[in-house]
């Protein structure tokens, strides 16, 4: 009967404390076992896809360019939730069944791959032509110039937008709840469906995400200060 009580009676506050102490464990477990690994693995795979996609998009090969463009267009032009549903609920109907966690990895990696490829492409294009020419002038070929001269500089340019993508990804992983990955938000849904304290439990889940993102933004700030020190505030691009 006090389930229906709107007011914050002493009993209800007492109850919040109980729920907090019993559910914080599962929420953090969901973060450590699923949310964070999902974000890290998908981001790593996504970055590799992104680098190759970016290179394909700036290559002189028409076919490569077209494939990369279509891939980016499809991923960016369709909702992430729909993509996850196609992978997890759609593919089994043609005989391809993938477990929840790998499904999520596939979906999020493809997503990071497409969005980050735009960031990396812009970063590569932002490196002055003179850098390529200087690399060629000391005898480097395209791949050497790319690997040794252009990508290291492009990486520095991409760090701020890529860290933003990573923080965005951490939050987006909550969508994996819909394909049965037992990550933070799904844990919250399960707990709330038992005790009906939706507001309180979902706020707790939100706090878990916020703490993770807060820590990430501190790390991001440190990395950026360090990069500035190495390359110089002005970018040092002579």
């Amino acid at each position: 009967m006090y389930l229906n009580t709107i007011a914050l009676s002493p009993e209800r506050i007492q109850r919040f404390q109980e729920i907090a102490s019993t559910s914080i464990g599962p929420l953090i477990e969901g973060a450590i076992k699923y949310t964070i690994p999902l974000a890290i693995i998908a981001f790593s795979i996504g970055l590799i896809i992104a680098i190759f996609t970016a290179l394909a998009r700036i290559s002189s090969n028409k076919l490569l360019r077209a494939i990369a463009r279509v891939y980016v267009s499809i991923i960016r032009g369709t909702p992430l939730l729909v993509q996850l549903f196609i992978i997890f609920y759609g593919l089994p109907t043609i005989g391809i069944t993938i477990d929840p966690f790998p499904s999520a990895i596939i979906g999020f990696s493809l997503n990071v791959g497409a969005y980050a490829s735009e960031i990396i492409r812009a970063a590569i294009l932002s490196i002055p032509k003179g850098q390529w020419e200087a690399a060629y002038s000391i005898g480097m070929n395209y791949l050497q110039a790319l690997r040794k001269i252009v990508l290291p500089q492009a990486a520095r340019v991409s760090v701020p937008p890529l860290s933003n993508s990573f923080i965005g990804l951490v939050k987006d992983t909550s969508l994996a709840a819909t394909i049965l990955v037992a990550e933070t938000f799904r844990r919250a849904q399960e707990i709330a469906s038992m005790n009906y304290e939706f507001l309180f439990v979902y706020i707790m889940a939100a706090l878990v995400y916020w703490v993770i993102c807060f820590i990430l933004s501190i790390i991001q700030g440190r990395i950026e200060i360090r990069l500035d020190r190495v390359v110089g505030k002005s970018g040092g691009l002579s």
Partner: protein
Amino acid sequence: MISIQGLKKSFGSQEVIKNVDLEIEQGKVVVIIGPSGSGKSTLLRCLNVLETPNGGVLSIDGQKLDFNTSVSKKSISAFRRLTGMVFQSYNLFPHLTTTGNVTEGLTTVKGLSHKEAVKKAELLLDKVGLADHKDKHPFQLSGGQQQRVAIARALAMDPKVMLFDEPTSALDPELVGEVLRVMKDLAHEGMTMAVVTHEMRFAKEVADEVIFIDDGVIVERGAPAEIFNHPKHERTKKFLSLLQV
């Protein structure tokens, strides 16, 4: 040593280099002068194939590239290694230290070990007067210092010829001297050099030959004293009078 025969280069429908022939002997310094847009940079950039000529035959130290036929990327790379280039805007690698700028080509292109490369870089940085700045990044150096690093970076690859495209034009006047001094030393050591510059004093003191180029053709060439004191062509006279030499 260097020979250019029938060199042609167009950008779209604009012919920028029109059938240029030029020989540069081993150890000679050639200064190229001419009005803005006359094709000086393009000529140098064709020599190390940063621009692909539309026709003509280039030859350096016995290696030949015939642009009247198709030319492979590999042979362009090999040919380019015969030349070193110094750009107006230095184009140092900002993510590398002074030493790193010089060693990068040695390790990546020449396959030297890190240790050998650093040793060679130290010698070269000492030579251009930057021994005390080897751990700095380009943004911590003055323009003159950056340009001297760029010269060391090019020299590291042991080029047969050094190409300079207005190496002092981006520098504050008080920094021009230190770069010209390094170039002079290089000339006295017998380096073959092609230099695009507006520094007429450098041309008079160092050049074996001055070439005046206008509208994609070599209008006049000769010893510096000859060109500066007794130019034969109207266009040369006009250009020099504008420079007030």
